């Protein structure tokens, strides 16, 4: 299958005061379309950094990143922002829902950037909430939901615009075993049923089991499988 993500010779450092902290060192890899890939590795190995680069919320120092046919390193900030809005769904460890908005409004948020009518937006939101099994909770605020439910709302928010790629940074990292299983099952379904390409960073070997490919990152280098 045609790769949907193509990362070539990517390096990235962070600067703290005047110290350079090398994080990623000449990384190259590809993810075929429709894959479910787990990215593992010790803390500080650069997993989040790599995920952020692929998802277009950070920029590499060197190298190219091509996602769904777009050279995202070449895009300027505003083009990159609208590219993210249409192509990437984000799932974070701490859900990152907006606390003053209801589940419905949180899921609707990315749709406000589209030209959809109010009625069309409602259809999208309700579909997404149905997929994650929380349609009956759409009037609830995040603080009225359990962690697992919050994460499901976050997943609904990530899929409501029907993006090609889902990125998840330790989506089960803050959840108990039962909720974690629910989330993993849901991701698996999104991959199989809805053909979403998923890149998931995780520490949890059981989470990684759900993925088709597991890649290990260590000290900024990708291990050969």
């Amino acid at each position: 299958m045609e790769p949907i993500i193509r990362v070539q010779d990517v390096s990235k450092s962070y600067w703290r005061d005047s110290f350079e902290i090398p994080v990623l060192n000449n990384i190259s890899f590809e993810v075929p379309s429709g894959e479910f890939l787990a990215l593992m590795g010790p803390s500080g190995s650069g997993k989040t950094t790599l995920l952020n680069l692929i998802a277009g919320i950070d920029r590499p120092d060197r190298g190219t990143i091509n996602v769904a046919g777009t050279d995202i390193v070449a895009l300027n900030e505003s083009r990159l922002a609208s590219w993210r809005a249409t192509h990437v769904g984000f799932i974070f460890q701490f859900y990152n829902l907006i606390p003053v908005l209801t589940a419905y409004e949180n899921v609707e948020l990315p749709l406000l950037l589209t030209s959809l009518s109010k009625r069309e937006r409602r259809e999208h939101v309700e579909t997404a909430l149905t997929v994650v099994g929380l349609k009956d909770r759409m009037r609830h605020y995040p603080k009225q939901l359990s962690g697992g439910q919050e994460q499901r709302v976050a997943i609904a928010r990530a899929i409501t615009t029907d993006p090609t790629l889902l990125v998840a940074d330790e989506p089960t990292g803050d959840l108990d075993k039962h909720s974690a299983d629910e989330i993993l099952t849901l991701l698996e379904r999104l991959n199989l049923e809805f053909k979403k390409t998923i890149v998931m960073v995780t520490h949890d070997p059981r989470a990684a089991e759900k993925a088709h490919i597991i890649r290990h990152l260590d000290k900024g280098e990708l291990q050969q499988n």
Partner: protein
Amino acid sequence: MKVFKLIFKNALRHKLRTALTILAISIAVMAFGLLRTVVTAWYAGVEASAANRLISRQAVSFIFPLPYSYRDQIAKLPGVEQVTYMNWFQGVYIDKNQFFARMAVDAETIFDVYPEFVLDADQLQTFKRERNSCVVGADLAKQYKFKIGDIIQIEGDIYPGVWQFVVRGIYRPRDKTTDATQMFFHWQYLDERVRQESPERAGNVGWYIIRIADPAQSGAISNQIDGLFKNSRAETKTETERAFQQGFIAAAGAIITAMNFMSFVIIGIIMLVVGNTMIMSARERTREFAVFKTLGFSAGHLVGLILGESMLISALGAGLGLFFTFPFVAGFAAAVPKGFFPIFNVEPSTIILAVSSALVVGFVASIFPIQRALTTRIVDGLRHIG
């Protein structure tokens, strides 16, 4: 769900904090409104003064009198249309808290020189005819329920004794800047009694008011008048009414300057209050802003959210403050001695200044949080622990 709804929900996130901020703004707007009103009331005297009137007073101080005989000499000068004169009578009406101007005037000329005091022709005729009559301003008449034919009794202090005046006219103000709280009676009536009781004080007037044909000539005519009486027993100092009023105001000027200054200090204080609230709320939302950006929201959206919230809070505070300014100012006016400020209105300029200051404050207060939200990179924002 539109941006405005989100702004609204954000503003209500910390209800108590938002409420206190709005309250602080409204109190500041109220205080600003009151201070400005006092300042403008103070200056209203200057604004109301006419450019074609000169005031001639004793050169040393206006508390010293001028001889009545100057009148004809001044009247003869070219460019002088009309000369009238006044004495500050003062006295006590009922008690010392009843504060209004009581003036001994020249009944023949006073209403010619002061066209802003509008008096019906028949009332003017009666006033001129009856030596013990007086004319009061409409506002004064309303306040004390004076009617034509009433007798006003005043206990003299500068001019001792009991004085009685019959109300024969009620003058109306020509416009809002006209002081309708004065009382005028015959200078001749005063002078006759002074002549009997303390002859050495007779034949004196407080100051002359000279109407001139051409305001541009005010400097030249003033010099001529003062020249006439140079080296005499009572030298004069002549200036335009406006300059005279300003000189009068300069005496209390330091306090007024302080009030003026304070009114702007208040704006500075609101700015800090709103700024502080906005910085706190924006800092708490660092991570949320990063999420918004991640989802593809632009810088413009974030500016809208932050600026909108800041403006909403400021506007609500300004609205509330303005709403209470009027009863507040009215309460203040009731608390100071009646007539202390003859003209005491919340000027449109005060309202405009208060509202626009509040809006400027809303704008300025959002600059720092906006700058912060825009320059924080997404990856740093997402790592932020709120």
